């Protein structure tokens, strides 16, 4: 993926989420402004045959993985044209045929599932790997450790990625996680683990590409931590706990602004191209909204379908 494409992808996520948040009937949503570099960097390094699994905060990853804004928007607005026919909604986006095995809203709930997906790949000789993204909050859950241990023992082709946005709802990571680095947790199991700056998409993409390559070559699991920053409240319905000043300060380090500045400085992009990109992104988002708004809700009878 080129840096242009990565910038585009990050802008698309930001614009998509802003439009979603402004939509009158979205219930509530888990947004990821400030964390786009992790989503885009991770997906830039994956191949089609890989499967990505995430926690509830999944919009950025779903879009970066290549799901269409239309099908994602429709799902989030509960429409039958959505990825999950409107039945999953926020926190449960899923499109396994596109390499997005899915989001799961139980904190840390997808970690062992991902290892199982990796086990299936290992046992069938499928070349794909499983990649699971979870938060700093999820890193205090016991299932992470049970899974790291088994993944290490069985040399499962799974990449554990902690998107450390430094908050679990209102709770700062420092208050609830004793380790110096979250990636330290994996070291005891003999798993290669490192922490990187998650605000720089190039760094993320390169770190993931290296890890993926090692895993594909049979090295067993790897663990990456990316330090990122959530710009908004936990959800569109949650109280913000940081001060306006602090938020303003945090938003200065924006992965989209930073990449834009870098591309401008090096002459890799100009203002005209940026403007085209922005208008293209907003067209895409507008089209997605139109599609979703025009789509029907599922029929009430669907409440009883797909149960078994």
């Amino acid at each position, binding site marked *: 993926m080129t840096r242009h494409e990565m910038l585009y992808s990050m802008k698309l996520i930001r614009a998509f989420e802003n439009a979603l948040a402004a939509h009158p009937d979205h219930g509530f949503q888990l947004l990821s402004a400030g964390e786009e570099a992790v989503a885009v960097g991770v997906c830039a390094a994956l191949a089609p045959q890989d499967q990505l699994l995430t926690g509830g905060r999944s919009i950025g990853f779903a879009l970066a993985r290549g799901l269409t804004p239309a099908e994602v928007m429709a799902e989030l607005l*509960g429409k039958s044209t959505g990825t999950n026919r*409107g*039945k999953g909604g926020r926190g449960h986006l899923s499109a396994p045929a596109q390499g997005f095995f899915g989001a*799961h809203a*139980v904190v840390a709930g997808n970690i062992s599932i991902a290892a199982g997906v990796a086990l299936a790949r290992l046992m069938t000789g499928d070349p794909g790997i499983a990649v699971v993204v979870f938060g700093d909050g999820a890193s205090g859950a016991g299932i992470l450790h049970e899974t790291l241990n088994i993944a290490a023992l069985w040399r499962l082709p799974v990449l554990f990625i902690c998107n450390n946005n430094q908050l679990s709802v209102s709770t700062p990571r420092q208050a*609830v996680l004793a380790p110096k680095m979250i990636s330290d947790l994996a070291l005891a199991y003999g798993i290669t683990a490192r922490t990187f700056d998650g605000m720089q998409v190039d760094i993320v993409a390169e770190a993931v590409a290296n890890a993926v390559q090692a895993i594909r070559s049979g090295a067993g699991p790897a663990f990456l931590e990316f330090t990122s920053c959530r710009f908004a409240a936990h959800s569109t319905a949650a109280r913000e706990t940081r001060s306006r000043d602090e938020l303003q300060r945090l938003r200065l380090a924006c992965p989209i602004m930073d990449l834009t500045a870098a591309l401008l400085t090096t002459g890799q992009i100009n203002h005209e191209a940026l403007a085209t990109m922005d208008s293209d992104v907003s067209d895409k988002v507008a089209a997605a909204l139109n599609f979703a708004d025009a789509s029907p809700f599922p029929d009430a009878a*669907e*409440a009883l379908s797909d*149960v078994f």
Partner: protein
Amino acid sequence: MPPTHQRLFYREAIVRALRETMADDPRVFVMGQDVGAFGGAYREFDGLFAAFGPARVRDTPVAEAAMIGIGVGAAAAGLRPVVSITYMDFLMLGLDPLVNYAAKLSYKTGGQLHAPIVIKTTAGAKGQGVAHSQCIESWLMGVPGLKLVCPSNPADAYGLMVAALEDPGPVIFVDHKKLFPVPGDVPVARYRTPIGTAKIIRAGSDITIATYSYMTRVAHQAADLLINEGISCEVIDLRSLIPLDAALVAQSVARTKNLLTLEEGQVTCGVGSEVAAQVQRRLGPVRVHRVGALPAPVSSNPVLEAACIPNAQRLVDEIKFFINATNPECLHP
């Protein structure tokens, strides 16, 4: 004369019970995710952190098993913890320390140890989707050693929380997401609502609706609608599921001859099954009909969630069919 009652939201009634008891009893403390300065997902811990500080209002990691295990251990060692499990679905992650240890502790130690813990958790659907909407009260009802309460209004929330905090054994305190912003009159004087007592919250003569928590409100709505059709509903708020006040329900059914159980969770092996069985143990065979969620997960999708969960109109339909049917089966083939 000072007022005898105060108007509180349900969530404020919870806070008040905790604040008063914590002030009186240094053994009581709170632990959970975002219960500190944030005040809890539903502001049901608002102000406690400011009043009692971080030693007695403890933010925890997302680690439900250890949260409950540590709480239970502290209880067994003499404290009175309140462990907040934000969503009842995630109680599943901590059932081992709760069911395999706390519930059996008094028994297995021959009475040497007890675990006076309160697990406060929130059940029910409010747009949160398949893994944040479940009602698993009935699982716990079959666990000897536990008590379980599920208030439907601020006054009972206060009184039952006070009672739970004073109980010698583990008590599960189940809120409902839709109840937190509900206001109600709460006596100003300190009191406890005895665990194990149901209450007739609406008198009627044709059918007994046994329900609890948020569904009491749905029952009221349906009862209002049915008056116009000449059907008079008696509504019983169970308030406590362990112990279950089946005697009160049976007294009512002895009069109305029709028992309808209403719950938001699954009917299969649900609360209503137990109410029905216990009433029949007292009265012999009676006409029974159970209403609850459709046998499916609860989606966050507004259409599907509404279709899954009982509402007043569906309840009205079910009651009319039930009362007229010779055999309820015709309703649910």
